[in-house]
């Protein structure tokens, strides 16, 4: 329990530092939110009055702590660029990105685990070799490019979905889910390849272990040894990888969202960086950082469930 509290405390510390760094970065980079908002027709007076309205004329630290206190109270501020409360803006978009990530994650788990086991079982066989070679190829494609290829294949070629016509989940949830399958696939493909490779080598690494020999000596069949003994041990590094992947996908959704024209938080992040809309940027980065940290935390817990040795020592 103490451990959990310690972890939580360090999570909060991490998030605090992240928030400060983002604030600092936005103070340093060129570009002024008010000028960005008002565009070419603005007069200096307009800019000044907008800066005053947004409180940008105050010293850096005061702005930071002002933001921090509001944030802690649950007020994420007002989006300059989208002209509405950040909370309101993000609440509609989080689900989109989360859906994308979860769908991709489900694909990764449901495809790569059976495939990894299969490849390990038939190590050296023709199928294993072809899986490994295609894995290497799939890992060699940048995600945005695989996104384009999928758009072309399933969207333009096979007309499974209408490219670029994101369906809002408020209008048609089913259509939304269907549309998300393809970007999720684009996100998942390279990760599936990595995961298959990892699981395969993890299983093969477990195979020469003494306990496997013990299991055989009790009369277990190979399949029984695999599923009853090896798999859980082999999953330990895979869980770490999956956790990192999950975190990675949250952050990496930025590019795929652009390819598939999905208005998720990644798109918002890019737009808001472009327009120096830092209350929104701050909120999105905090959200992503939180997800990353939280996923790491969850991995830690799953780790403890999977591996009883971890439960004892900190």
């Amino acid at each position: 329990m103490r451990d959990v509290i310690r972890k939580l405390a360090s999570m909060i510390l991490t998030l605090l530092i992240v928030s400060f760094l983002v604030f600092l970065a936005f103070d340093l980079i060129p570009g002024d939110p008010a000028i960005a908002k008002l565009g070419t027709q603005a007069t200096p007076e307009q800019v000044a009055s907008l800066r005053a309205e947004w409180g940008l004329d105050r010293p850096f630290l005061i702005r930071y702590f002002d933001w921090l206190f509001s944030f802690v109270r649950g007020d994420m501020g007002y989006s300059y660029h989208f002209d509405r409360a950040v909370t309101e803006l993000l609440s509609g978009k989080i689900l989109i990105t989360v859906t994308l990530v979860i769908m991709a994650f489900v694909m990764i788990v449901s495809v790569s685990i059976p495939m990894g086991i299969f490849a390990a079982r038939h190590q050296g066989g023709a199928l294993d070799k072809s899986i490994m070679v295609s894995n290497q190829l799939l890992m060699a494609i940048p995600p945005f490019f695989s996104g384009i290829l999928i758009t072309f294949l399933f969207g333009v070629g096979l007309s499974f979905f209408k490219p670029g016509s994101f369906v809002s989940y408020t209008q048609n949830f089913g259509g939304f889910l269907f549309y998300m399958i393809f970007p999720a696939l684009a996100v998942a493909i390279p990760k599936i390849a990595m995961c298959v490779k990892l699981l395969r080598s993890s299983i093969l690494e477990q195979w020469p272990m003494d306990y496997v020999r013990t299991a055989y000596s009790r009369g277990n069949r190979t399949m029984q040894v695999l599923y009853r003994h090896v798999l859980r041990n082999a999953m330990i590094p895979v869980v770490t990888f999956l956790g990192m992947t999950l975190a990675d996908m949250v952050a990496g959704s930025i590019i795929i969202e652009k390819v598939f024209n999905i208005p998720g938080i990644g798109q918002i992040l890019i737009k808001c960086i472009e327009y120096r809309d830092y209350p929104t940027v701050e909120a999105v980065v905090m959200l992503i950082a939180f997800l990353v940290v939280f996923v790491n935390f969850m991995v830690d817990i799953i780790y403890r469930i999977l591996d009883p040795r971890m439960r004892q020592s900190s």
Partner: protein
Amino acid sequence: MKLKRFACVLMTLTIALSGLTTGCTSGDKDGKASSSITIGIPQDLDSLDPHKAVAAGTKEILFNIYEGLVKVDSDGNLVPAVASEVSPSEDGSSYTFTLRDGVKFHDGSAVTAEDVKYSLDRCAASDGDSAPLVPAFSNIKSVDVKDAKTVTVNLENPDTEFLANLTTAIIPASNKEPEKNAIGTGPYKYVSWTPLEQVVLKKNEDYWGEKAYITDVTIKIIADGDSIVTALNGGSIDFFARLSADQVSQLSGDFTVYEGTMNLVQALYLNNAEKPFDDVRVRQALCYATDVKAILDMTSDGKGTPIGSSMFPAFGKYYTDLSNTYPKDIEKAKALLKEAGYEDGFTFTITVPSNYQPHIDTALVLKEQYKEIGVTAEIQKVEWATWLSDVYTGRQFTSTVIGVDASTLTAPALLSRFVSDAGNNFINYNNADYDAAYARAIKTTDDAEKTAAYKECEKILADTAANVYIQDMAEFVALNKKYTGYTFYPLYVQDLAKIKPADAK
């Protein structure tokens, strides 16, 4: 083993779900295509509040929802809108408007003189706290309600061109949250806005003028330029304005392509206060080295109108064709450079905003062309916000490729910025002759004299090579053949009310 089975179930579920949903999605479009249209825009609205929205991309959509006392027609003329009659005073120091009968806001209430006063005061920020929302309104002394149907606008300083600013939207005084609830008088009513996704409009059945043809308009935001063609060809959108020549060449046969001009002055803008561009000979040398036709051929299949000064053809009477001031002449350019002491050429930076591919392309071609006279251009892509604050506001640059547009269809919208002490004179242009000519143009009320003075300004800009003028870029608009009736405006406007189903009369 359990895991595997679980995964299988999940997969089946996903597939089953997707099967279910394909049925849903494909149904809703085909049947009543004629009464609805989906259009694409490249960037999201920055506000629904017509007085606070600044992006051109937002204004061209809000044009359909809001109207001012006057509005622009497709020829660029100002025509009465919410007002039915305008009577300016002789000297241009006050304008009196008579409101049109029967103009209703979208919420059903009638437009009153109080609403007009409220709207104009709001933009002029007459309470004095902050800067005026419409800069030109700082010139408004007062807005007087004469009676229920009459409003007079009094100016501090007489301005004969002021009417163009009164396209400013009239909104109901009762609407306390204009940024959330758009209520105007235009041909379309606002229905919903989902940021980064779409804006939905509905036909205003009570519109005072010619009513729109299409009932439902969905405006989709397609932020990624590369997916526009795919979205058009794939049928997600029926309409997209401002396509590039390359994009047009990749469209399927389902589209009518309208060709027009962007109505902006694309140029290599030079910082006239910075070395080496403080020397007119260097600027002229660059002009001589520039082959505009080659640029057009390279970037837009030869489409686009070469221009020679800060004025584009849509301005009609004010426009003179100066595009031949500097025909391509490498020898002359080299001679000028030699004269200016840059015999061995020099290196300079072209700063371009990274979100405008056409300008980047132009810069790339320019870089190649300047190699011929031994001048090395280095291209630096910067974010739009950085460009605005560093280049445009901060004037920290040597040169930049950008397109300058006109906020209203008056010559000052393009020419005022080159007056030495103008706040938006980002190229630091400083020429006494120009200042004098411009002052003359503003003062006079005689139209011929005014036109002559403006033309003189244009000529001075061209002769002193204030910038390397390139073109008014070609604009391509794709409209699905199911529809027709697209009309170009000389300003940033997409008039959706004129689009009609192809089978309707």
